[in-house]
């Protein structure tokens, strides 16, 4: 009965297995104490060896190049280079947080609970998800920064010439294809809707495509395709399996985006090797 399923005593704590229990003091408290000591000592050591950075006093007239957000936001700053700012900076992270928060409501089975990689195949699925996340994200970054076309041409002598120039990166789909003039200004509303200073009336279709359409498509399609493929291949059976792939893919992509944003983005957010990375202070008055 449907109502019975809803009224299932989901929040009931597990019964205790008293004969399997040990005393918190000393068994747990001791471990916590050691962990706290190890971290305290390690952090003291680190603090003696390495000083927190302090650059020149803040100056709104001197822009460092590159200017970077704190490292844990550089994943978003990296995304920002590839798509519409609102999408990269706000919509994608917000939606992801909601999706992640909803994991337990999607995957409600108790199977595999409470032990590392408790379900069948979960190690394999985590590795596949993680690797696809890492390799896929690197591939997309290399493509969109034009490096892929550059490597193909420089190292292997492949060149698409002018015909395939539009495949060089995402932006060139907008700039290198002969879009008809009308497509750059499609009126979709008979009057201008203004919401807090932003107006919505005309659509620049090629611009929309490269800044929102394709990035959204990629972010939705890649994970969906991966999960679909693994399901067809008989590796995904349960919701837990699907969530494991999705989460592992996220961790992989997050890692790559953070590392690239931190260590591979030089002046003008150009993609460079970490050892080529240097920061120059801007010239006063020049942004």
């Amino acid at each position, binding site marked *: 009965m449907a109502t019975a399923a809803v009224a299932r005593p*989901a*929040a009931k*704590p*597990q019964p*205790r*297995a*008293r004969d*399997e229990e*040990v*005393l918190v*003091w*000393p068994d*747990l*408290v001791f*471990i*916590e104490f050691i962990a706290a000591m190890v*971290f*305290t000592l390690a*952090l003291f050591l680190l*603090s*003696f060896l*390495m*000083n927190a*950075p302090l*650059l*020149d*006093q*803040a*100056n709104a007239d*001197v822009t460092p190049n590159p*200017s*970077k*957000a*704190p490292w*844990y936001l550089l994943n*978003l700053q990296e995304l920002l280079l590839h798509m519409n*700012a*609102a999408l*990269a*900076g*706000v919509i994608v992270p917000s939606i992801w*947080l909601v999706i992640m928060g909803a*994991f*337990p*409501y999607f995957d*409600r089975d*108790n*199977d595999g*609970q*409470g*032990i*590392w990689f*408790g*379900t069948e195949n979960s190690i394999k699925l985590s590795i596949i998800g993680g690797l696809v996340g890492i390799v896929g994200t690197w591939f997309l970054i290399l493509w969109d920064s034009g490096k892929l076309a550059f490597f193909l041409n420089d190292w292997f002598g492949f060149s698409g010439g002018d015909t395939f120039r539009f495949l060089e990166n995402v932006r060139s789909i907008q700039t290198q294809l002969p879009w008809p003039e009308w497509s750059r200004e499609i009126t979709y509303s008979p009057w201008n809707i203004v*919401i*807090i200073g*932003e107006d919505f009336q005309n659509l620049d279709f090629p611009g929309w495509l490269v800044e929102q359409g394709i990035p959204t498509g990629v972010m939705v399609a890649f994970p969906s395709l991966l999960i679909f493929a693994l399901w067809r291949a008989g590796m995904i059976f349960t919701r837990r399996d699907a969530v*494991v792939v999705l*989460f592992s893919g996220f961790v992989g992509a997050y890692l790559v985006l953070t590392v690239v944003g931190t260590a591979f983005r030089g002046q003008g957010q150009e993609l460079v090797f970490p050892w080529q990375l240097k920061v120059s*202070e801007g010239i006063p008055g020049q942004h």
Partner: protein
Amino acid sequence: MAVETPAKPSLSDKLYDKMFHNYVWKSIFRTGYPNTPRNQMLIVATNVFLHLHPTRLHRTHVKVTHTYCLGGLSFFMFLGLTVTGILLMFYYVPSVERAYLDMQNIETTVQFGQLMRNMHRWMAHAMVILVFMHMMRVFYTGAYKPPREFNWVIGVILLVLTFLLSFTGYLLPWDQLAFWAITVGTNIAGAAPVLGPKSRFWLLGGFEVGPNALIRFYTLHVIGLPLLAAIFMAVHFWRIRRDGGLARPL
């Protein structure tokens, strides 16, 4: 036949008695020294800090490889950041005129000032990493499954709060790194559709990072966000106990 006489109390026994069975000790710690199972359970149950724990717990959960202590260490970082943060507050005034000079003073003239600042900085980085890793351990042990669904949600909120705590602290040194990182960071927030520019203005108290932004970030950093985080952590820990301790296979 020799009559067995009880052994005379040794010196250490006497010392032990003097230390732990006296009036003052018993007024502070109601239980005796935790060297018997009874006292060990009592000390956990009667001490306000220790009673975050149950008195006994399942064997699998005291294995370091089950949690790697990551949640506990996240909390430990939070405590350490509170201590070092309070010390830094003694010397730091969040005004555009003083902030940077105060930072220099902390590094050069304040006793152990550089050490305090370094500890605060590295602990903050450590906390971000530890919380993320804690989330991964919870995920890969399937510990978000019923009945712990909502504690996972609270966890996600704590993750966001950890990022925000770190982000608001980043501006305070008022050096080039701080200023431009926050400029870039708030530009990201300002890109939100419709509400973006307004929320950026609200966050900065203006259109640019300036005195208003500094005082807002400071207030959020030293009281607003820590308070919120502490509340959510309290709920997080409470629920772990209510949900029957850590997850284990059915």
